[in-house]
Every structure is written in C-alpha cells, then in structure tokens.
C-alpha cells in the first residue's frame, strides 16, 4: 500500500513535469510540479517510520536545548537589551520555525544539488522541462521537522498568554508577510551558497557553516552592538528573519521598516536568482 502511494506520487511528479508543454499554462504547471514534488518527497520520507519518530523526538530535545539558556538568562534578569522574557520567546519561536524550514527542506534539498554536481547527475535535472531551481529546491524534505513548526506555535501561544493580549488581525497579516520575506531571504542565501558549488565543489560544509551562523538569529538584533549589529542587519540579514516578524507580531514594527524589509527581500531573491541562472549557464558537467 505504502509502496503504491510512493510510486503514484512519484509518477504524478513526472507526469506534471512531462505534460505541461501541451497545456502551456505556465503558472498552473509550476504549482502542480511543486505540489507533486512535495508529495513525492514526503511519501519517500514517510517510508521510514522509526526514523520519523526518532527524528521527531530529537527535534523536541533540541527545542528544549534552545529554550533552556533563555530561561536561565531571564531567571536572573527582567529584561535584556530592551526585550522582556515573553517578547524574547516570540523571537525564539520564529527562530525555531525558520530553523525547521532551513533544516527540514532547504538544506537537505540543496545538499543533494552538491551531490549532483559532484557526480555529474545534475545534467538529468537540467534536461527536465521545468525550472531547474524549482526542481532542486524541493527535492528532499524531512517531514518530521513539522515538529518544529508545532513547537514554534506552542511557544507563541505561551508567550502571548504571558503578554496578556493576542496580536490583532493586522499584526498577524504583517507578520505572515514578513515570514514569507524571511523564508525568501533564507532560501536565497541557500541558493547563493549552492551557486558556489559550480565553482568550488565541496560546499556541503559551507551550507553547514551557514546553518551554524543562523544560530545567531535566535536573539533579537538589539542584543548585538556596533559592527556585529550592522552585519546581522544588512550583510547577513538575520534581523529580517526573526527580529522583524517578532516585532510585527508584538505590534512594534513601524511601517517604513516593514516596507523596506519586504522590498529588500524581493531584491535579494532576484539577485540570488540571477546569480543562480548565470552559474547554471557557466556549468560544464562533470561527465562531459
């Protein structure tokens, strides 16, 4: 039964890829490719049930590891760098959610690209009649990282119960928009890192380095001072990923910063896209 489901999802993925030129409706096709690919990789991952449970439990453990230092810090202090405990928890919630996205979909998929480049099998991906960036970005998903999203939600609920009032609809919408921007930027950085794979082959550990730098995003940007504050806001926009969405939920983000963040993320994603396209053009396969 399970095997059947996997096979059917994978077949739908390849059909979605294949029959699209006949229809000629590009956006529809893209959506269908995305949904079929996600279903295929989820079905593949769900085959390993024990792994699912073990990895889910580990995700919970690491969430606790992220929470404990914060609890100790605020056991000693009422507020740090202008943030109270529940406010800081909101930032941590965004961090946990984005880390789940990063380590659950982006990293594993893009790690696979590095493997493709090394083995020369990227050619097969490039031959397919769909956008290669799209194909490689969702090729591998670790569905147990949903635990992270659930954990983030639990952290938000707890934090807002302590704050005493729920965010308004407008604040929720703004936060959602910023979440999209954050994922876009995160994704663009990952794409940029992978674009390096076409020049220098061993970048799987570069991706790992980025994952560990991302750990900084668990704190709001006002924790940092001087040069570091500038770096984490503009050069490597970690503030955009967790601090701004948290400020939006708390109703403390001013309109100008929000608009700048949204525009900035679109700009960043376009640049990443251009770099990806140019490195694909320059790509000479390992096998030919």
């Amino acid at each position: 039964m399970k095997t059947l489901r996997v096979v059917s999802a994978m077949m739908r993925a390849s059909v979605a890829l294949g029959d699209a030129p006949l229809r000629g409706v590009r956006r529809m096709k893209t959506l269908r490719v995305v949904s079929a690919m996600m279903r295929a990789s989820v079905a593949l991952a769900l085959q390993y049930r024990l792994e699912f449970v073990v990895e889910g439990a580990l995700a919970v453990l690491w969430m606790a590891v992220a929470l404990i230092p914060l609890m100790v810090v605020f056991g000693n202090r009422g507020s740090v760098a202008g943030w109270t405990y529940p406010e800081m928890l909101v930032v941590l919630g965004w961090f946990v959610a984005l880390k789940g996205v990063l380590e659950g979909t982006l990293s594993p998929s893009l790690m696979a690209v590095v493997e493709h480049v090394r083995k020369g099998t990227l050619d097969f991906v490039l031959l397919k009649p769909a956008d290669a960036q799209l194909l490689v970005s969702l090729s591998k998903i670790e569905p147990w990282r949903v635990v992270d999203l659930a954990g983030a939600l639990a952290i938000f609920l707890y934090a807002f119960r302590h704050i005493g009032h729920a965010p308004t609809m407008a604040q929720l919408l703004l936060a959602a928009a910023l979440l999209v921007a954050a994922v876009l930027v995160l994704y663009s950085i990952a794409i940029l890192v992978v674009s390096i794979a076409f020049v220098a082959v061993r970048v799987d550990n570069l991706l790992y380095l980025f994952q560990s730098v991302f750990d900084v995003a668990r704190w709001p940007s006002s924790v940092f001072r001087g040069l570091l504050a500038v770096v984490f806001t503009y050069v490597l926009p970690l503030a955009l990923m967790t601090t701004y969405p948290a400020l939006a939920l708390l109703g403390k983000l001013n309109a100008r910063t929000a608009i700048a963040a949204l525009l900035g993320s679109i700009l960043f994603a376009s640049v990443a896209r251009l770099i990806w396209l140019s490195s694909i053009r320059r790509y000479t396969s390992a096998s030919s």
Partner: protein
Amino acid sequence: MSVRAALRAYPQFLRTGFASAVAYRAEFLIWMFSTNMPLVMLAIWAAAARSGPVGGYSQTGFAAYYLCALLVRLMTGAWIVWELTMEIRQGVFSMRLLRPIHPLWQWSAENLAAIPMRGVVALPVVVILLWLARSELSHNWFDWLLVCPALLGAWLLYFLVQAIIGTLALRFESASSLFEAWLGFMNILSGYLVPIDLFPRAVRVLAAALPFRFQLSYPVELMLGRWTHFEALELLAAQWAYVLVFFVVTRVAWRSGMRHYAAYGG
C-alpha cells in the same frame, strides 16, 4: 602483541592524519568555524550583564568563560562516530577489520593528529582571550599544569563516547541519532551553553554527578582558577575514573558488536 604493533605504527598514523588535515585545510577550517555556539551565548549574556554582573559574572567574566569554553571545544574535537556509522553502513568497515591493527587505534591517531591544526585555529581565540579577559584567568601555575591532563581526559571522554555509540551501529541503525541525543544533553549539562553555576540547585547537583562536565566545564574552570589545589586534583581523579569506565565499556561494546557483525555488501 597487538598493542606493540599498534605502538610501532602509531607515529606513522599520526603523520598520515596530520597530512590529511593539512590536505583538506579549507574544509577543516570551515568545520572549525562552524563551532560558534559559545560566541552566540556570550552575546546574550554580555547583553544581560550590561547593567551589572549576573550571578558573579561581569561582562569580562562571561567573555573569559565562553572564550575558554570555545578553546576547550576546539581542542578536544573528535568525529569517529560519523565515520564509524558510515563505514558500517557502507560495508567499508570490513576492510578496516582486515588490517592487523585495531581500527580504534588508527581513528584515535587521526583525531589526535588534527590537534596541531586545531591549535592554529584556536590561536586567535587565545589572543583575544588574553587581550580581553586576562584578569579573569587563573594566575596559578598549578592550574595550568593540570589543564593538560584535563584536556586530554576531556578529549578521551568525547572520543570514547563516540566509539561506544558508533559501535552500537553494528547492531541497530539509528546510532547516530543516539549520539545526537547525547550532544543535546551535553550542550546543557557540560556548561557549554550556560555556566553550570548559574543553573538552579537541582540541575547543578545532577550536572556534578554526570560525566558531561568533565568534557568541558572542568577544564574551563581550571583555566579560570575556580578550584583549590586539592579540589582540582580530586576532580581530575574523577575525570580519569570516568575515562577508565568509558574505556572498559568501549571494549565490551566492541567485542559484543563484533560477534553480531555481519558485513553489509558481503
């Protein structure tokens, strides 16, 4: 017999290990740079201590603590658990067994041989530490004398735990997940993320009894001059007692794992 053979081959293993660390220096550097957790934690504590010391730590105190923690972590790296689990899964492990020397000897040499390179990376940390927080470091030569065996003990604990858990991969597949769980507990209970003395009493008592602290917080506390001579020696003895226990467990796990082992890929 085999110990003598191993000892004769050991210098060559060390040379090979060092050469491979030098050959893959770019990768090596990236791996080392991704050890940044102490600095991330230092950021929040330094922000918390802006308005005054927290639990006896000033901003400089935190800087000294976390830089020492980073130093200990950099100098006591080991990675055989990933190599063991991978080689067992791919069947390459059988080739290792064919060699006339116990594989753990070779791995230990590989991991030890990387220490000079690690030292190069750790050097800037030392410079920053001396520049920022010299006053917080121990002024007692005795402490610094003990730092060497304490670091060796910390490395051995880390290596042996990895050997034990890696050997479990001979029996069941998710051994590397088990090691990840160990890492999670180590992060909290070894003083890597939060100095142990800032925890509530119950956690402190727990951490004092478990082996995790000997992997990190004990050498760090030596560098910071927290212990009297007698206490420091007592803790060193406790650390090496744990090393001995872990060594015996490694041997038992290895032997029983070998009896179970049926190579993948024949």
